């Protein structure tokens, strides 16, 4: 069993017990424990089930590479699936449950899959479930989906109670990894005075050296670490951050840092996670190395662990993963574990080492001296056990697995050698080189990621760079630190150098293991990928490493293959008879380990999810029950329903009140762009299809704008303020777009023209006073002459209304007598209230966008976005009157000369009236005879706007119809959504209301 030792544990505080629950049982650990160490201390070795076969799974590692120990963490709104027990710091009241089993961890129905394993080889689902066809959707897939997924999904109505935030940091050097390499590299870089940020994903500095010891600068590693941290903390140009992981490296020195502020103290104030967006000139990745498992049969049994992890649990947490631990290693480092276990008073029945040494290297000798039996040239034939390893079978490594003896044990510590963590190096294009001597990929300094200046911007330090011994690590780190700030190399602090015998790569143990053993030798624990699966993939021609990965799902689990990639790759290259470097690795992608979606979204939630743009009258709309319509980021009132009124009833009331009395519209969102300069007229002539330069001062003119591709993009009224100043109104959506459009042409095409523009949209509240009684209302406000004589239709005037400075435009989008009044935004609400006050007895009625739409449709005015959709040219809309024939050029003119644009076959704008007076369905198409070559019904037109007209008490519509204007009076057939039900409509003049335009010009 696994237990807490009586003494030891450098990271735990035995005076501070912590209570937590696992699968609803209360357990206790100590402050400083991880959930994993605490579980082991409580003899909870089996903590989950594998993805495919639901095999029992135990804790394998002690850090971010853990593939098995994933738990549902937390309750209710704080529930979080797939949390790694090895990186979860223990806190009081922690609640965790194991995953992917039913009904229970110990008894799991899904485990039947393990019995069927031979029937479920790699890629089996590509070969099965093909017949009968409907079964995939209705039977096979539902079953597969049922068993899919690991962690429990949060409740659908969950609202995350925690907050998240972002932070931008700009530094000269970012060091990722707080082991001795990171510390030394940071120190070396900081000496130059550069701005240095050092981040470490765990809560502790020092990395492996703090566990494995050694002497640096004549002092024990741990003391050196403490001292160095102190030094760095004392430097004002250095920032240190623990619990902050380097998640991803992007172009131009952009790095994501994932800081977990409160995961270890859920009740604390402030954000749970902070996503750092770091911009750095140089990066040093001191991300260490990860130990590899060894592929032998039964290597997935709970109790079979990485040797370094076993060591970590003993040294850091005073936890013994087992009472009798067999060490299996193909390199010297594994012996450290044997020695550490012995030192902790635990039994180590044997170290099994496939190598044979003439002279024992120091660590081997040390182990023997400690009385540990060392079996050279030997291998593990298989590990035995069920929910926990009970023993191993020893065999000759060179053989096929014939049993030489059995050794009982409850823990197996395996070391297959180390793999540098090269993820961050690779994210932005860094390439790797195969180091045959050490049997691992290391960063290829000749192929480093390059930055904006084309020079390398990522450096690697320490074991991440392939240096496994303290002395070399420190020297490499010193170099990296100095190089990153352009300094000469310099000797690093001295450390005890060690002699070690070379690793003997072992990709399958024993070397000649047969199929039965290979089918039980795991590569990817979580996804249940075995040696035999990779070999099958190779046999079937999946020769690219990417093919094999996807076919077998090797390395596609939540650990992204941190343990399995190299072993799997080696098996593949062996099966293909190629060298490992030829086969190559899969691509490393961000993030290094999974990061919360909350952190990615940051502050942007609820009220500040996205900006809401508000007009000066917004508050009044809100207070008066406006139904909102989002228009871009603006909110515009759709209508103002009164008590007991439906939206439709409200719209009808608003239309009638406006047509018969006076209505009030908040038009503040309309774009207002000032264009000034001696070339302003010339510029607007290019921008609009109309001739604007001839517009007299004091007058207004409706204009159309097209894209260079010929399509109608915006419309609005232009007012000439003085000889060289125009005010251009745009649609609500157009304001920013058109202003940018103007600046683009001015800056990039006609930069010698004398024109300045300014977007004054938000300087003014613009309020439309509309209806037969509009003049009366304004006259009551007083301050300026708004009579027909003083201010005729399509003119503007400056003055004051009710003592508020105002610019009044006599323009109409409703067909009624109408004034659009622009007042300073700061006084918009005042003006609005004033109108309501003095207009009360006139029945003044605020109206929303829907009434606006209805009234403009009754008048046959087009609406950008309804009559236009990016494929419509002004000529389609009967707007030729607004296209100047006098001009040689305007933006879009050339495009409109293309064959398809001038074709007689284009659909053109008409009015539509159903024969029965009903309202045509929105978006309906008019059918023509026959079908096209693809069997689709032929069409001859479509509805662009359709409304019930309260004024005419019938349905009215506009639409684009093939050759429409020439077909007045003709009846065409539209089809409803079902594609069958017919609606007959007559083609009519689009101006349904006041065709002569008398009402607006009074």
């Amino acid at each position: 069993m696994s237990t807490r030792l009586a003494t030891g544990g450098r990271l735990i505080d035995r005076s501070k017990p912590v209570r937590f629950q696992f699968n609803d049982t209360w357990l206790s650990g100590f402050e400083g424990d991880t959930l994993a160490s605490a579980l082991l201390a409580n003899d909870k070795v089996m903590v989950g089930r594998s993805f495919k076969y639901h095999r029992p799974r135990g804790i394998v590692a002690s850090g971010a590479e853990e593939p098995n120990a994933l738990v549902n963490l937390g309750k209710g709104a704080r529930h979080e699936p797939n949390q790694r027990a090895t990186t979860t710091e223990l806190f009081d009241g922690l609640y965790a449950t194991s995953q992917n089993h039913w009904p229970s961890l110990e008894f799991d129905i899904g485990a039947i899959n393990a019995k069927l394993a031979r029937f479920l080889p790699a890629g089996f689902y590509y070969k099965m479930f093909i017949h009968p066809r409907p079964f995939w959707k209705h039977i096979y897939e539902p079953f597969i989906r049922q068993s899919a997924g690991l962690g429990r999904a949060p409740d659908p109505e969950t609202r995350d109670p925690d907050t998240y935030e972002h932070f931008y940091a700009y530094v000269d050097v970012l060091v990722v990894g707080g082991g001795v390499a990171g510390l030394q590299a940071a120190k070396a870089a900081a000496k130059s005075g550069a701005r240095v940020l050092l981040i470490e994903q765990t809560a502790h500095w020092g990395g492996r050296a703090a566990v494995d010891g050694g002497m640096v600068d004549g002092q024990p590693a741990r003391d050196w670490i403490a001292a160095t941290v102190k030094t760095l903390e004392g430097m004002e140009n250095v920032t240190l951050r623990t619990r902050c992981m380097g998640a991803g490296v992007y172009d131009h020195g952009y790095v994501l840092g994932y800081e977990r502020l409160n995961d270890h103290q859920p009740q604390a104030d402030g954000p749970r996670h902070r996503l750092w967006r770091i911009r750095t000139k140089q990066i040093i990745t001191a991300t260490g190395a990860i130990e590899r498992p060894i592929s032998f049969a039964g290597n997935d049994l709970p109790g079979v662990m990485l040797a370094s992890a076993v060591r970590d649990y003993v040294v850091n947490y005073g936890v013994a993963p087992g009472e009798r631990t067999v060490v299996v290693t193909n390199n010297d480092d594994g012996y450290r574990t044997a020695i550490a276990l012995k030192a902790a008073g635990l039994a180590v029945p044997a170290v099994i080492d496939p190598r044979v040494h003439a002279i024992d290297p120091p660590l081997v000798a040390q182990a023997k001296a400690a009385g540990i039996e060392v079996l050279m040239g030997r291998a593990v034939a298989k590990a035995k056990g069920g929910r926990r390893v009970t023993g191993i079978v020893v065999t000759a490594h060179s053989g096929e697995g014939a049993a030489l003896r059995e050794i009982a044990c409850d823990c197996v510590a395996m070391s297959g050698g180390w793999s540098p963590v090269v993820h961050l190096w690779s994210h932005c294009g860094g390439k790797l080189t195969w180091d045959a001597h050490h049997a691992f990929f290391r960063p290829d300094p000749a192929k480093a990621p390059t930055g904006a200046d084309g020079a390398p911007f990522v450096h690697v330090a320490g074991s991440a760079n392939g240096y496994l011994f303290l002395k070399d690590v420190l020297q490499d780190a010193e170099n990296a630190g100095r190089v990153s700030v352009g300094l000469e190399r310099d000797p690093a602090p001295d450390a005890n150098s060690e002699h070690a015998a070379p690793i003997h790569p072992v990709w399958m143990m024993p070397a000649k293991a047969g199929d039965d053993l290979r089918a039980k030798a795991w590569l990817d624990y979580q996804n249940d990928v075995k040696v035999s699966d990779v070999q099958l993939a190779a046999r079937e021609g999946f020769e690219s490493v990417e093919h094999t990965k996807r076919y077998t799902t090797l390395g596609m689990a939540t650990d992204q293959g941190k343990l399995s990639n190299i072993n799997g790759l080696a098996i593949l290259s062996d099966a293909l008879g190629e060298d490992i470097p030829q086969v190559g690795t899969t691509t490393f992608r961000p993030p290094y380990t999974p990061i919360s979606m909350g952190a990615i979204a940051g502050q942007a939630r609820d009220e500040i999810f996205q900006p809401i743009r508000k007009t000066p009258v917004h508050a009044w709309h809100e207070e008066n029950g406006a139904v909102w319509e989002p228009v871009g980021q603006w909110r515009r009132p759709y209508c103002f329903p009164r008590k007991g009124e439906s939206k439709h009833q409200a719209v009808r009331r608003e239309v009638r009140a406006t047509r018969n009395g006076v209505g009030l519209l908040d038009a503040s969102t309309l774009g207002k762009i000032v264009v000034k300069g001696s070339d302003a007229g010339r510029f607007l002539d290019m921008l609009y299809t109309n001739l604007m330069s001839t517009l007299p001062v004091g007058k207004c003119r409706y204009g159309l704008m097209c894209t260079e591709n010929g399509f109608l993009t915006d419309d609005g009224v232009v007012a000439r303020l003085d000889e060289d100043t125009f005010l251009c109104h745009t649609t609500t959506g157009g304001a920013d777009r058109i202003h940018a459009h103007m600046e683009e042409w001015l800056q990039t095409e006609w930069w010698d023209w004398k024109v300045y523009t300014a977007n004054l949209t938000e300087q003014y509240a613009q309020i439309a006073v509309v209806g037969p009684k509009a003049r009366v209302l304004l006259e009551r406000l007083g301050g300026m002459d708004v009579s027909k004589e003083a201010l005729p239709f399509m003119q503007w005037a400056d003055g004051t209304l009710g003592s508020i400075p105002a610019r009044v435009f006599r323009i109409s989008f409703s067909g009624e007598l109408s004034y659009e009044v622009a007042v300073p935004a700061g006084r918009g609400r005042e003006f609005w209230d004033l109108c309501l006050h003095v207009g009360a007895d006139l029945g003044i009625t605020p109206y929303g966008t829907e009434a606006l739409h209805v009234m403009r449709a009754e008048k046959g005015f087009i609406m950008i976005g309804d009559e236009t959709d990016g494929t419509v040219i002004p000529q389609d809309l009967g707007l030729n009157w607004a296209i100047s024939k006098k001009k040689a050029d305007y933006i879009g003119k050339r495009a409109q000369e293309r064959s398809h644009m001038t074709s007689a076959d284009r659909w053109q704008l008409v009015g539509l009236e159903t024969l029965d007076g009903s309202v045509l369905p929105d978006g309906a198409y008019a059918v023509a005879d026959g079908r096209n070559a693809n069997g689709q019904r032929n069409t001859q037109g479509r509805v662009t706007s359709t409304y019930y007209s309260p004024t005419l008490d019938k349905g009215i519509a506009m639409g684009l119809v093939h050759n429409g204007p020439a077909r007045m009076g003709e009846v065409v057939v539209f089809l409803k959504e079902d594609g069958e039900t017919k609606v007959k409509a007559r083609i009519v003049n689009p101006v349904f209301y006041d065709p002569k335009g008398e009402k607006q010009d009074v």
Partner: protein
Amino acid sequence: MSEGFEELCRVRPIARQGMITLRGDLSAKAVKNAVTGVAGVDMPSRREARHVGERAILWMSPDELAVLVPHEEAAVAAETMRSALAGIHALVADVSDARAHFRLEGDTIREVIAKLAPVDMSPAAMQPGMVRRTRFAQVAAGFWLRDEATAQVFCFRSVADYMSGLLRTAATPGSAVGYF
């Protein structure tokens, strides 16, 4: 927000800030005079913000300045500039009502801004007297440092509530970064 924690910095809207946009040739004497005349502040050079009390001139772009004056003076000041620039190719617009302004006060203003804007807020890079137009989360905004402990942020009027929400969230108690 729990008791015992202070906001990182004080965030308060500046109720009525006068602001005038000028576009023109900033090297032209007439332009300089017109602007410095009404502002009573020296001409700023590239990315500078010059201020005296509540009056300031902000460098907005190679051909644009923003003049800050008390709101009640803005209309007149704009008129004065216009007449001063009569016959010269320039554009003067009173945008007092088109913008919202906020003042951040406290010794962690750099941190609060660094949560929202992709800008190097280190004292070495961003010093009092500098102005920067950029992005605060999802909206265009600008800010300048009056002094080490006072920043002034401006954005469009329509997103004032959003900006206020951003700044207050960034200054939430317990969210100190402790970076600068």
